[in-house]
C-alpha cells in the first residue's frame, strides 16, 4: 500500500507536492512536447509544482541545456492551456536540464545519478525523484535496467523514487507479464505508476463522485433499472504519423484494452470501502474478473471489427487506412471495434455493455451512456405510434456522461409538450463543466503528474489489473483467427462504422449519436 505523509492530510487548499526532480526519458519526443511539459508548466503556474523542483530530460540527441529549454518553451507556447509569459517561464525553466545518453548505456545512468545528486544539493531537494518513461515501449526494459544498475530505483535520505510508465503496457498478456517482471526486479509495486491518461480526465474522475457522492443515482445503477450501457470512444483522426505503432496495435490494443476497459470498470465497479488506491483498484479488478467478453461462436455476432476505407470526414476527403503512409497495403489491422460484453455479477447480470471505438468516425467524442428500461405501460400518447401502449414508442431515459468534448452529464427524460394535447417529448437536462464552474478543467496529465508526485496511485493501473485486461484482449483476439470468428469488415471514413456495427446492438436499441 502507498505510504502517505499524515501531516499533508486535510491541509486547507491545494498544497504543492514535495519538491522533486522529474526525469523524462524520451525528452525529445511528441508526448513530452505536447503533454508533459505543458502539464508541468501549468502545475507550476498553479503553485502545485514546488518552485525548487527540477526537470531533467534524457534522450539520445545531443543538446545543450539552453537549447533544450528553448525547445520546450516553443512547444509549451503551442500546447499549454495558458499563455507562456517570460517571467513565469523563466522561473519554471531555471530548473530544466538535459542529459544526453543512450538508453542502453550504463555510463549514461551513472552520469544521470551524479547530475541528480548535484541538483539535490543545489536546489535543496531531498532525493525525491519521479522517472517518466515517455519512450517507445521497446526502450522500457533497457531503461529499467539502467536505473536499477545506477541505484536510482531506491532514493536515499528519506526521498522517494517513483516511475511512471506510459501505455502501451505490453502488447499482450505474455509481454505485459514480462514487462511487469522487469519492473518488479527494479521497483516495488508501490513505486510504479502505470498511466492511462483517460483516468486523469475530470469527467472520468467525476464518474465516481457522481455515483457515490449523490444519494439519488446509485440506487438506479443496476440491472433492475438499466437496460444496457454504451461506451463510445470515437476519433475523427486517422493514424496521424503513428502508423508503425498503430498497425501493430489496432483499436483492440490502442483503445479497448486500456481506455474502454478502464471506463467500464468505473461504471460497473462496486463502491470501494475507502477512496484509496488499493481499495479502488480492488473493485476494478473484480469487474474485470467478472467481465465476459465474446468468445467462441458468440464472437461472430457479438464482435464487429472493421477497417476504414477512403471517405469524407468533416467534408474533407481522407485516404483509406491501407493508403495511409507507413501502413501495409494488405494490413489486416482493425480500426473499428464494437463489442457486446457482460459483467457477470450480482449487480449487472443480464445487462449488455456495448463498447465501441474507431478511427475516422464523424466526430471526436467519448461518452458513457446508461440507457434505462422503458416504463411498462405508455399512457400519454395520441395514438400515433404503432407500438400502442407497451412503451416501445418512446425514448428510454438516458444518463450520459460525456468525457469529451463538452465535458458534462446529461439526463434525458420525457416531458409534456406545452399545449392541450398529452404529448410526450424527450428533453435533456444538462450539466456542462465549462459553464457551471467557469474555468477550464486541468488537463489529464496535470492531474496524473500531480498524483504521482504526491504518491497517490488511485488513478493508475495496478499490475494485476493490467494483466487481466490483457488476458481479456488476448481472448478476444484469439477468436479472430478462427474461420467462425468476426471477419474484418470495411467502413467508409466519416461514417459511424459498418452496418454490422450498427446492428450489433440488437433490435429495440440503437447506438447513441455522440
Amino acid at each position, binding site marked *: 500500500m502507498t505510504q502517505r505523509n499524515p501531516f499533508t492530510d486535510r491541509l486547507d487548499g491545494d498544497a504543492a507536492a514535495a519538491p522533486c526532480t522529474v526525469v523524462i526519458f524520451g525528452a525529445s519526443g511528441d508526448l513530452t512536447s505536447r503533454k508533459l511539459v505543458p502539464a508541468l508548466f501549468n502545475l507550476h503556474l498553479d503553485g502545485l509544482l514546488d518552485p525548487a523542483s527540477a526537470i531533467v530530460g534524457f534522450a539520445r540527441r545531443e543538446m545543450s541545456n539552453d537549447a533544450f529549454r528553448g525547445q520546450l518553451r516553443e512547444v509549451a507556447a503551442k500546447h499549454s492551456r495558458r499563455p507562456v509569459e517570460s517571467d513565469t517561464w523563466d522561473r519554471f525553466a531555471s530548473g530544466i536540464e538535459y542529459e544526453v545518453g543512450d538508453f542502453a548505456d550504463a555510463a549514461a545512468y551513472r552520469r544521470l545519478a551524479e547530475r541528480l545528486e548535484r541538483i539535490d544539493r543545489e536546489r535543496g531537494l531531498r532525493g525525491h525523484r519521479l522517472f517518466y518513461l515517455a519512450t517507445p515501449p521497446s526502450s522500457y526494459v533497457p531503461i529499467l535496467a539502467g536505473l536499477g544498475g545506477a541505484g536510482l530505483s531506491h532514493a536515499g535520505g528519506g526521498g522517494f523514487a517513483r516511475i511512471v510508465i506510459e501505455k502501451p503496457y505490453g502488447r499482450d498478456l505474455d509481454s505485459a507479464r514480462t514487462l511487469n517482471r522487469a519492473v518488479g526486479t527494479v521497483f516495488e509495486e508501490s513505486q510504479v505508476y502505470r498511466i492511462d491518461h483517460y483516468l486523469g480526465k475530470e469527467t472520468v474522475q467525476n464518474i465516481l463522485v457522481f455515483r457515490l457522492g449523490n444519494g439519488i443515482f446509485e440506487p438506479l445503477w443496476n440491472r433492475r433499472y438499466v437496460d444496457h450501457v454504451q461506451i463510445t470512444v470515437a476519433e475523427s483522426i486517422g493514424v496521424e504519423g503513428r502508423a508503425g505503432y498503430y498497425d501493430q496495435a489496432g483499436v483492440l490494443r490502442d483503445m479497448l484494452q486500456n481506455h474502454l476497459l478502464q471506463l467500464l470498470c468505473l461504471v460497473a465497479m462496486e463502491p470501494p470501502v475507502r477512496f484509496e488506491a488499493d481499495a479502488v483498484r480492488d473493485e476494478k479488478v473484480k469487474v474485470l474478473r467478472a467481465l465476459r467478453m465474446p468468445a467462441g461462436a458468440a464472437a461472430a455476432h457479438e464482435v464487429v471489427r472493421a477497417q476504414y476505407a477512403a471517405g469524407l470526414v468533416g467534408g474533407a476527403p481522407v485516404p483509406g487506412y491501407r493508403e495511409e503512409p507507413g501502413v501495409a497495403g494488405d494490413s489486416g489491422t482493425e480500426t473499428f471495434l464494437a463489442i457486446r460484453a457482460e459483467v457477470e455479477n450480482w449487480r449487472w447480470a443480464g445487462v449488455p455493455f456495448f463498447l465501441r471505438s474507431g478511427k475516422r468516425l464523424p466526430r471526436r467524442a467519448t461518452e458513457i451512456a446508461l440507457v434505462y428500461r422503458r416504463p411498462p405501460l405508455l399512457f400519454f400518447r395520441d395514438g400515433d405510434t404503432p407500438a400502442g401502449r407497451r412503451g416501445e414508442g418512446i425514448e428510454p431515459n438516458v444518463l450520459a456522461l460525456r468525457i469529451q468534448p463538452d465535458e458534462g452529464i446529461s439526463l434525458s427524460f420525457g416531458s409534456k409538450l406545452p399545449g392541450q394535447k398529452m404529448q410526450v417529448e424527450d428533453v*435533456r437536462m444538462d450539466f456542462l463543466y465549462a459553464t457551471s464552474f467557469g474555468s477550464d478543467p486541468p488537463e489529464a496529465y496535470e492531474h496524473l503528474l500531480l498524483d504521482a508526485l504526491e504518491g497517490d496511485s488511485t488513478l493508475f493501473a495496478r499490475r494485476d489489473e493490467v494483466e487481466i485486461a490483457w488476458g481479456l484482449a488476448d481472448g478476444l483476439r484469439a477468436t479472430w483467427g478462427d474461420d467462425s470468428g468476426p471477419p474484418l469488415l470495411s467502413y467508409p471514413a466519416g461514417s459511424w462504422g459498418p452496418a454490422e456495427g450498427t446492428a450489433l446492438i440488437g433490435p429495440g436499441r440503437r447506438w447513441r449519436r455522440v
Partner: protein
Amino acid sequence: MSLAAGGTERVTLAGSAGGPLDVERLERDLASMWKAASDRTGGTAVSRACSSTLIALFPPPAPPGTEEIVAALSRRHPCRVLRVERGDAGGPPLTASAGAVCHLRGDGQGLICTEEIRIVVAPGAEERIPSAVRSLSLGGLPVVLLALDPAALATREFAATAADAHCVVVESASARDLVAERPAGARDLAWSHGAALRRALAVAADDRTAAQVLEQSVRIEVQYGGDGAPPAAALLLAGWVAAVSGRTAIGRDEAPPRAATVRRPASTGSASAARCEFHPRPGGPSGLRGIAAFDEGGRRVQATLDAGAHAAAIEGPAGTWRMTLRPRDRADEVIEEIHRHLPPPAFAAALACARALGRSLEA
C-alpha cells in the same frame, strides 16, 4: 441592449469567421464564443438553448419564405442550425462560418441564443455535404432535416443526409413531387397545410348524417388559390377523404382536366366511386381554400377557410357554423411535425391515394 421582451428582434454573436470548413476549429471557435458571450452582450445573461440539430438545405433559389421559417424555428424550437447553401465556383469546396442568434427571453431577463453554422458548398462539392453535417451534428440530440424545395429530394446529398436524420421534413409542391421517392417516415408540410380542413371535416362528421355524406360521397371538390395545377396539399386532402371512406383505387377519368375518380377496390355499389375535382380560385390567396363532399342525393358537407385562414365555415345537413382556427404559420407546422414521433397512419393512406390521383391528373 434595447430588445423588447418576447419580441422578434435578433442579436447575433460572431463565433467563427468564414473560411474553409474545419470542424475542429469551428467547434473551438463556438466554445470560445459561448465563454465570452455574456461580455459581448454587455453583461446580459446568455442561455445557450438547443434541443436538436436542424439541417436546412437551401438550394438556389430557396423557396419563398425559407429564410423566415428557419429564423422562426431557431427562436421557437431552439436548435443548432446548419444552413447549407450553394456558393459560386472557384472557392474551396466547403466554407463555413458560425455564430449565434439571440432573442430576449419572454420575461426580459437575459437572452436565449442558438447556434447557427453556415456552410457554403461550391459547385461539384455536393457529395461532401452529408459528411460535413454528420460531423457538425450535436451528440445525443435528434437531427432534423428540413428540405423545403422538392427539387432537393432528388439529390444524392439529400438521400445521404436523410439517412442520418431522425426526422425529415419536406414540402411537396405538386403532384410530381408526391411521386418522388422520399425517406420512409418523412413528414410532408403539404399534409400539414390541410390540417385545418381535415379538422373541420372531422368536426362536421360528429353529426351522423354528415358522416354518411362523407362516406357515401360521389363527388369531392377541393378549392385552392391560384390558377395552376392543384398543389400537393390539395391532392393529399382529397386523398385523405377518399382513403378514409375506403376509396383507394383510381379509375381512368374521361372527364375534364383536374378531375379523377376514386373507387372502392372490391365494391360495385352505386356509391363506390367518387369523382375528385380540383378547382382553382384565381386572384385569392394561395393555398387550400376549402373542400366539399356531395352524396348521390345532393347532400353536401363543406368546409371553407376564410381569407386569413383564421376560421373555417362548416356546412352540412345539420346546419352551418364557424370554427375559429388557431393561427399557425409554416414554422408552427414544421415544429408540429418535428414533435410528431411518427407520421400518422392516415398520412400513408392519403399519400398513396394522392400519388395515384396526381398520376391520373398528369396523364
